[in-house]
């Protein structure tokens, strides 16, 4: 074992890390909570949602903890008024961008976005809501995708590509027009690559990807399978 051990500080606490670990991993190992949304253990981190931004002494810009590697002597701060304001603003923008109606959502009480809102102290949204007219694709026999609730975290895209190996999901369009799509932007039910494994549904943090037949507040996501799957794969020769 030639792993080199680093020492750094997070929120004033001295912690050690194995070279190659990200700030987020080290923080979590040490019980320091940094909010995340697009990050999911078992999938490649992409630093897309910017919820995990942290301040590193000597670095002028904010860095996403999920893709920034720990370095010797690094001084990381995870909770500053600036970070808290940024995180709240990010969550507000997500709520304003699409139509999130928590009260009647199938994922009510089981939603990572809803939890984040509370965690970052978002008591209201300070930017105007957009109210885009987005649809639900329920052509798949077992699952549905509701674009009104999507935050474009890309977990579905990654789990489908990296774990299931089907790469049914992808993104289409840029900026405000960006959508998750199945195959060549065709109805999910007509997708020839989808194996109907349901992994995308369970990694989705909101009520976007759901099992059909679920009533409000009934869509609980099961995430436990992911670490097992990755562990099993790594264990094979």
């Amino acid at each position, binding site marked *: 074992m030639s792993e080199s051990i680093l020492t750094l500080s997070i929120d004033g606490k001295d912690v050690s890390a194995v070279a190659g670990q990200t700030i987020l991993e080290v923080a979590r190992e040490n019980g320091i909570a940094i909010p995340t949304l697009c990050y999911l253990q078992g999938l490649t981190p992409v630093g897309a949602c910017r919820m995990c931004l942290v301040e590193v002494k000597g670095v002028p810009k904010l860095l996403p903890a999920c893709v920034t590697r720990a370095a010797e002597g690094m001084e990381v701060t995870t909770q500053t008024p600036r970070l808290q304001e940024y995180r709240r603003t990010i969550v507000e923008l997500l709520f304003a961008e699409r139509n999130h*109606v928590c009260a009647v*959502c199938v994922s*009510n009480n089981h939603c990572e976005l809803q939890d984040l809102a*509370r965690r970052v*102290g978002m*008591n*209201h949204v300070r930017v105007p809501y957009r109210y885009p007219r987005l649809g639900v694709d329920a052509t798949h026999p077992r699952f549905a995708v509701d674009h009104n609730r999507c935050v474009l975290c890309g977990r579905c895209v990654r789990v489908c590509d990296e774990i299931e190996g089907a790469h049914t999901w992808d993104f289409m369009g840029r900026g405000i027009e960006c959508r998750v799509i199945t195959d060549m932007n065709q109805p999910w039910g007509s997708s020839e690559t989808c194996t109907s494994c349901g992994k995308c549904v369970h990694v989705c943090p909101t009520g976007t990807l759901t099992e059909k037949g679920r009533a409000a507040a009934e869509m609980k996501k099961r995430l436990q399978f992911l670490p097992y799957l990755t562990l099993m794969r790594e264990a094979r020769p």
Partner: protein
Amino acid sequence: MSNKIRLATVWLDGCSGCHMSFLDMDERLLELADKIELVSSPIMDAKDVPPNIDLTLIEGAVSSEEDLHKALAFRKNSKLVMAFGDCAVTGNVPSMRNMFDVDEVYNRAYVETADTQKQVPRSVVPALLARARPVHEVIHVDVHLPGCPPNADIIFYVLSELIAGRMPDPMKIGKFG
């Protein structure tokens, strides 16, 4: 009498569930009755918009011209305004109509599903605004209390804090939905 908090409660475009949740304080209502004077509320008879209100709770989104005027009038006469519940705070279910044009919404209800006298009501009734909006988009809001509805315990906590002259943080115990 004079040192009681002058409280008003208002319904805009909501379901009255927040007001019902207010009543769900049950026996604690009687406790509150010693500390507050209800000066305007749908559960009582009162004149238009009373003066010198200490606290107004607004339930519902701002959806019609009447809602808008009410919000403005109560703001003018109130020291503190609280957006009371998800509809007031986020627009919630009433804002689901914002994905459609107002005329589409009217037509479904008064033309397509009517059997006789098919017509959109235009006289006496206040017109819908183009969009149902959260209260803070039209007036300044001092306290935001989310929930569909906020449960009675949270309402009691927030009111007790305000009565005691402290500014509560409803997000500590509240949530959307």
